[in-house]
């Protein structure tokens, strides 16, 4: 069954005020266009979960969409501080819940696997554990030693950007996989944004590359360049210039608001945003191809 729809419709139908939202992607494939659409549609009181909130959540927090963040590293990757979120946390205006990366993805793994909790070996660093009541200990029934546990994380909705998907939602990703698969299986609803919508036969020609199956997908949106200023492996590079600029923009509330007005509220969709970036940026982000050797699945 085709689940193709516009990103506008997908956000309108599946992202609601007060939802626990997970926009997936560790540095790679971050669905910025979806974040912008959520801002345009004026969602409020969202709980934003991501291992690395990155610029996409800095922007959602700047736009007033969030009441809480769940994270394991709040930085502007490779640049420094994530100013908006950091300021809100320091000012006590934003709730938060914090884990290490491993704690965060273990929560997703538990959520994806339908488990009540997941054990992790202890690390001897207990300060986070003492400040987050979700991080607990149980006695290993086999050795009698203690292990650390975290509960499942089950977002209301996940948004996952992929290189290619068919209209049913079978989605293929290559490059950094981050926590994409776990987020998809852990969430109640999954919105796929794809650089390319391909025929089902393309997916079926390489089933090992399918990370997310159609049965858990609610909507499929064709959104080329959705990940800018992050990147899509093989399609376009990370816009490091923008990551550096964001650090400057967010030094001032006026500049931040002006940026949102111009680049989010001031454009109607991802296409208009990409065109507005201009030829020079498009050229700068181009990548030369490097193809994998084909594999032979055999005819049986």
């Amino acid at each position, binding site marked *: 069954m085709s689940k193709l729809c516009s990103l506008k419709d997908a956000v309108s139908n599946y992202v609601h005020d007060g939802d626990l939202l997970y926009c997936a992607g*560790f*540095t*790679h494939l971050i669905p910025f266009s979806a974040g912008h659409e959520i801002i345009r549609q004026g969602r409020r009181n969202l709980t934003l979960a991501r*291992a*690395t909130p990155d610029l996409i959540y800095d922007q959602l927090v700047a736009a007033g969409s969030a009441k809480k963040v769940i*994270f*394991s*590293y*709040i*930085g502007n*990757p*490779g640049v420094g*501080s*994530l100013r908006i979120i*950091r300021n809100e*946390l*320091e000012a*006590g205006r934003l709730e938060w819940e*914090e*884990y*290490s*990366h*491993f*704690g965060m*993805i*273990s929560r*997703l*793994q538990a959520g994806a696997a339908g488990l009540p909790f997941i054990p*992790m*070996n*202890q*690390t*001897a*660093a*207990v*300060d*986070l554990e003492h*400040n987050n009541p979700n991080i607990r200990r149980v006695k290993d029934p086999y050795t009698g*030693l203690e292990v650390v546990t975290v509960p499942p994380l089950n977002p209301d909705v996940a948004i996952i950007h992929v290189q290619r998907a068919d209209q049913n939602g079978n989605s293929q990703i*290559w*490059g*950094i*996989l*981050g*926590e*994409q*698969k*776990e987020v998809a299986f852990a969430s109640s609803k999954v919105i796929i944004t794809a650089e390319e919508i391909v025929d089902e036969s393309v997916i079926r020609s390489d089933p090992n590359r399918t990370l997310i199956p159609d049965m858990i997908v609610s909507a499929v949106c064709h959104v080329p360049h959705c990940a800018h200023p992050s*990147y899509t*492996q093989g399609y376009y*590079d*990370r816009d*490091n210039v923008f*990551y550096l600029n964001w650090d400057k923009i967010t030094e001032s509330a006026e500049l931040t608001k002006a940026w949102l007005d111009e680049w989010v509220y001031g454009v109607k969709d991802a296409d208009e945003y990409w065109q507005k970036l201009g030829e020079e940026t498009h050229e700068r982000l181009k*990548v030369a191809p*490097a193809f994998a050797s084909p594999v032979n699945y055999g005819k049986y």
Partner: protein
Amino acid sequence: MEAIAYTASELMCINAARLLQDGDVVFVGVGLPNLACNLARRTHAPNLQMIYEAGVIGARPTRIPLSIGDPTLVSGASSVCSMYDIFTLYLQRGNVDVGFLGGAQIDRFGNINATVIGDYAKPKVRLPGSGGSQEIAAWANRCYIITPHQKRRFPEKVDFRTSAGFLNGRAEREASGVRGKGPLVVVTNLGLLEPDESGELILTALHPGCTTDQVRENTGWPIKFAEQVRQTEPLHEAELKLLREELDPQGIYLKSGG
């Protein structure tokens, strides 16, 4: 011999590279650790394997990675896996030899704070948080720290233990049962700190031209010195040339701290 000019970052990077052994599997961060690993791989440790928390194994970056998830880490790597796999199959299972760590504060026993200055619930300065470091510090067989030598970075006690060094002493870490040996060397722009039998960081080596007075002035606790403080080997021109001309030609990470 005429002294070669170099920046503090170059000095720390080259000394960190020398700690790595051929065949080491290293959990790498961006910035100086990444440069140190690439330098080691291009010199004395050709079989060093770089793995990244984003889930990349055997990376062979052809440009300087600007983030922990840079696409150059993937192209030409030997394997890519999920984050859950990298933290379980590789790190928790014990397949990582070396972890590099950094943070805003490192205390007398090598505990690291990358989370908060002040009270956790009402942060004075909110720092990025653990990322991968809580588990790397516990489970990598050896950990190294690269940091500029400044008093505010070396307090007697950290405000928050993001990752464990030797806690309040080596015995406490050993009793906790974590598998890794903990922070074995802290590389600063003045010299090298290493844990003594009690797990306390003491100065064991000075870089050429650096003094024990400088170390005392820039450490937040009454730092002890090894009976015989060594001098680190001067930087080789070949190492500097590789760093400057091939690994970080734009000086993105090397120009700082001069």
